[in-house]
């Protein structure tokens, strides 16, 4: 089931267009990565989903119903720019934020105590926020975001400012929440984390959706028929017949490494057959493009085509 759907959403700010015809959907129990360069419109989309701003056009649905204020308690939102009252005590502040989400006083306290224990910050309940390190403040913010057990979680750049240990903790928590049935939308610039966490992605560039789908499908569609081959060391320079070209050949004391590209007409088995005649193959692996490469490639080509369109227009 689709937890959240946006249909043809548009948003204009005085002087510039933030979102153009954005249709996105987040399926239940999956993690949707919201990618895009700075200023592409991700935060605007997230704000629309959180009812912080309203779209100029288009519709947003939550579990099939038009999104309304009553749905907000089923959404947990961790903004990119996030802060806490510095002079307030940690526990007091967490209680305040939790109760604003609609939890009763008892519920809030009970759940907070559990989470504080899990995140090993239970000794900090009565400390002032300004005494906490940035990482600890982020733990508190994360707890408050997920405390009311929302069906949809939205994390805007959750990893920014986290040290590797806390980032890992956060990643595990996100996956755990997903396994418990929550749907997650998260925007990030960290492509490695996209590959680890996301099931689906939406790539927004210059206010438009330029790429969307399952991570695996996208990766497949971006495959370039390039293979990494490791074989016993050979001094000979390897070359093949038409359709198979060696992009690079390197060697260490024992192995020779080849990067080989084949034509679309050929299959990996064709390459293997050619290889076994020439070298002792130790390993053979297709090179799938990283999300990083896909991101850069898509955004660059999109920008170029837009510039080209503009120039044609003139």
């Amino acid at each position, binding site marked *: 089931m689709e937890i959240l759907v946006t249909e043809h959403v548009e948003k204009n700010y005085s002087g510039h267009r933030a979102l153009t015809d954005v249709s996105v959907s987040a399926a239940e129990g999956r993690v949707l990565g919201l990618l895009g360069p700075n200023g592409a419109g991700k935060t605007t989309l997230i704000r629309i989903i959180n009812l912080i701003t309203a779209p100029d056009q288009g519709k947003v649905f939550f579990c099939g119903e038009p999104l309304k204020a009553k749905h907000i308690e089923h959404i947990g939102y961790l903004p990119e*720019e*996030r*802060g806490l009252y510095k002079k307030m005590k940690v526990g007091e502040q967490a209680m*305040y*934020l939790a109760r604003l989400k609609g939890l009763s006083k008892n519920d809030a306290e009970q759940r907070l105590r559990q989470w504080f224990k899990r995140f090993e910050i239970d000794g900090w309940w009565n400390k002032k926020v300004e005494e906490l390190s940035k990482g600890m403040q982020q733990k508190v913010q994360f707890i408050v975001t997920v405390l009311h057990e929302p069906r949809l979680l939205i994390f805007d750049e959750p990893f920014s400012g986290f040290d590797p240990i806390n980032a890992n903790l956060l990643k595990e928590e996100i996956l755990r929440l997903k396994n418990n049935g929550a749907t997650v939308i998260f925007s990030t610039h960290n492509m490695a984390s996209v590959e680890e966490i996301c099931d689906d992605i939406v790539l927004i560039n210059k206010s438009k959706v330029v790429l969307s789908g399952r991570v695996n499908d996208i990766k497949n569609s971006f495959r370039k028929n390039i293979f990494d081959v490791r074989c016993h060391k050979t001094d000979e320079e390897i070359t093949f017949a038409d359709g198979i070209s060696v992009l690079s050949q390197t060697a260490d004391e024992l192995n020779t490494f080849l990067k080989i590209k084949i034509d679309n007409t050929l299959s990996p088995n064709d390459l293997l057959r050619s290889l076994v005649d020439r070298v002792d193959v130790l390993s053979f692996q297709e090179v799938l493009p990283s999300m990083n490469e896909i991101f850069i490639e898509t955004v660059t080509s999109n920008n170029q085509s837009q510039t080209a369109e503009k120039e044609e227009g003139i």
Partner: protein
Amino acid sequence: MRKILLVIQREYLTRVKKKSFWILTLIVPILLVSLYAIPIYLATNSLEVTHVAVVDETGLYNDFHSSDDIVYHYMDSFDTASVGNSDTVDVMLYIPRPRSGVVPTETFVYFKNDAPSPSVKSDMDRQCQDMLRNNILLDVYNINREDYDQIKNTSVKLHVQDLDTGESDFSGMKMAIGLVLSLLIYMAIFMFGTQVMRGVMEEKTNRIVEVLVSSLKPFQLMMGKVVGVALVGLTQFTLWIVLSGSIITAFTIANADTFDRARQQEQIQMLHSRGVSAEQLSSEMPNTDMQTEMVQGLLHIQYGTIAIAFLIFFILGYLLYSTLFAAVGAITESEQDNSQFVLPLTVPLLLVIILTPTLIEAPSGSLAMWLSMIPFTSPVAMMVRVPFGVPIWQIAASVGILLLTIIIAVWVAAKIYRTGILLYGKKITYKELWKWLRFKN
């Protein structure tokens, strides 16, 4: 609604828990009480008696009058030893015989331990001059002392009374109260208004607002803060009133004599207003001294009415200014760059404070009347006028205009606030604000 209550609760508790709140709560009653206590202190402070020993070798200075706090004793000879040993004499005044036949104008004052106070010195000085003058008048111009005294002591006293109620007007005391109240309401509006602004700026610059706006509407956040801080203000005023009230009551009991005297004075004046003749009055009425009159004035002020008016105009003035201050807080990120928006807000308040001395001269004049109708100046201007009595219709009109302006201000502030709090790193101009206001959402 539950959420707005949570916001109010937080805003209230975090402020009331601060030390600065309690310091201010204690300081103001102390100031108020000292204002109240000074006239009483002046009226009762005759306990310190200075004894002056006079040695007059000329025989001209033979008529020193002792008063409650300065007692003159004539002595025959100049004897420092006897004065030095005496516990009762504080100061010795020595007037030596002049060397030749000239007028004796040289006098010497000796003291031990403490130098004579300015009031003692001026009393000696005045009496010496009087006596010298009397002698000259008598010797040279042949005017005797009684005639001169009569001429010199001729004075006119104004008894200003309301024809309907028979009450005296005590305008001096009312002026003082009007000044204090207008200053107090000005400071309160400014202080609590800027507290709202700082709170909004804190939320904006710390990015707390990002976390909050997903849970509640910006309007709830803004109004929660405005109401929360208002409750802090009211708590502070209540504590001020209770504290000052109890101190003043204690004071009144401790100085019952002074107040009794003031009350007697009052009764005599009431008798007069019921048609007692002037001669009867002058014989009945002892010479009113200024201090007693001030105490009388204190008894006469309608504290209840003034307190209610103060609370109403504080709440309304605060609501007007604090919502606008909230909007300013939402569009600025530091105290330095908000002056272009804060200044226009403070100008009307400052203007009326500067004008208070003028207003107090004519509390029912047209300037006072108009300033107490303009919503941005009316809370302060009304406080100047209230001790003198303001027609009910004017108060009603002023409150009505204020309420209307508050509604507009809340609408404007909410629009600016909603857009402003989530906008960073952009310098906002008045032109931009105008665009936001016209933007339908």
